[in-house]
């Protein structure tokens, strides 16, 4: 008996040393995962067979729960939503015809400029949102499609109405998406009407009022106005060009009197995203198809923010 006790005493390591070991391991892991992909692949593999099935199930459960709680309210809201959507359909149909006209003009102009077709129909795959990040600081969510469905890091995520975000991490059957309203997100965008480029950066402060900030808008002619549409720019590293982001809410001159900044309202309702589309094309792959002259222009502009 005494021997057993002795043995047990020997094994106990003071917890501060354990903390030290954990800390060192963590730092090593951080460096390793930051510079290589060696560790994250097996770990995300573990995640996809353990956490994901449950997460999927629980998410359904949670959805059912909230649905049941709001059932009556939902019926009423659905009716009004239906009305609104019908109006929207009309509006969109009108818009669509205008766009078709523009597209015709555009293709003509493209031909004129000798540019290759860029805004073609992308190959997309639908995915369900199955989880949100656990804290309040970020806006990252999980979707239920992964490398098995041809997803890769840096792919663009959209909904019918516009840009949602970027795939940041991919497992076998899951991927995490950082939305554009996340505080650390920066999107190189442009004003559709004037082609002035700007940076759309998410801001935690603006999240409650459903807005995103933008900055570095160079608008010498003062042509950009409230209500102008913002789309992803041609010169972005990661975002495919021409995806709708939102509409300008306010524009202000910066203190430097050169650039402008302000806020825009995103087209996507980030509070109620359930299904998203992932574009299975990378901007990097796209860039290779574009002619050499254009890509050198991209380099010259030095666009390193994504």
């Amino acid at each position, binding site marked *: 008996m005494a021997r057993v006790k002795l043995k047990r005493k020997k094994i106990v390591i003071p917890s501060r040393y354990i*903390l030290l070991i954990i800390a060192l391991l963590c730092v090593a892991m*951080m460096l390793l995962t930051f510079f290589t992909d060696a560790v994250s692949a097996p770990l995300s593999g573990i995640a996809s067979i353990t*956490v994901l099935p449950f997460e999927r199930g629980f998410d359904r459960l949670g959805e059912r729960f909230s649905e049941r709680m709001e059932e009556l309210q939902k019926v009423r809201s659905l009716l009004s939503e239906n009305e609104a959507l019908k109006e929207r359909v009309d509006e969109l149909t009108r818009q669509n015809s205008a766009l078709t006209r523009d597209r015709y003009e555009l293709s003509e102009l493209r031909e004129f400029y000798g540019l290759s077709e860029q805004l073609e129909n992308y190959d997309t795959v639908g995915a369900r949102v199955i989880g949100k990040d656990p804290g309040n600081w*970020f806006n990252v969510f999980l979707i239920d499609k992964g490398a098995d469905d041809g997803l890769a890091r840096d792919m663009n995520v959209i909904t019918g109405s516009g840009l949602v975000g970027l795939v940041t991490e991919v497992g076998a059957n899951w991927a995490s998406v950082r939305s554009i309203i996340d505080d650390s997100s920066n999107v190189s965008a442009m004003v559709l009407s004037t082609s002035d480029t700007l940076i759309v950066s998410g801001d935690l402060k603006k999240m*409650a009022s459903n807005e995103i900030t933008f900055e570095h808008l160079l608008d010498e002619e003062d042509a950009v106005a409230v209500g102008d549409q913002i789309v992803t720019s041609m010169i972005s590293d990661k975002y495919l060009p021409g995806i709708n982001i939102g509409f300008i809410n306010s524009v202000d001159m910066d203190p430097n009197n050169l650039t402008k900044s302000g806020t825009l309202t995103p087209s996507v309702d980030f509070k109620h995203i359930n299904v998203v589309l992932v574009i299975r094309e990378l901007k990097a792959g796209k860039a290779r198809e574009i002619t050499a002259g254009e890509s050198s222009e991209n380099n010259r502009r030095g666009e390193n923010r994504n």
Partner: protein
Amino acid sequence: MKRKIIEFILVFFCFIFQCTFFKTISLGGIVPNLMIVLTAAFGFMKGSSEGMFVGVIAGLFTDILYGNGIIGLFTLVYSCIGYGNGLFHRMIYKEDVKFPLMLVALSDFFYCFTNYVLFFLLRAKLDLFYYFLHIILPEMVYTVFITILFYRLILRLETALESDEPA
């Protein structure tokens, strides 16, 4: 061993709960942090090593799924919280809920503050007061509220586990 497995399962399900179900109970876009509650609770109930164990699991889950490609950061933060709470292991009466609540609130503040420093302050977002008022404080209050609800359960589980173990 049995204790570790039960703790693992507990953290596992709480994590999934946190990521899926909690968005339906969020108030003003703020969700409470169940991981902090568990890590802190096991820390001051059983000691530093146990707190660190729970912290490491909670942190690893967060890192792998939501860590933006860097694994280890949240693991480190959570295990520090587990260790820190373990330091109060000998000082508190588990049955008295006031001191544990304070510890949970402090842990949550520590977690939020590290988050702020690492992901916001370093990107020159200096408005600490705003973030304190709109993110940190609501989360602390909500987390403490959740702790009041769950503390008895965790305590009961802990007592059951303890009575199961050889002295």
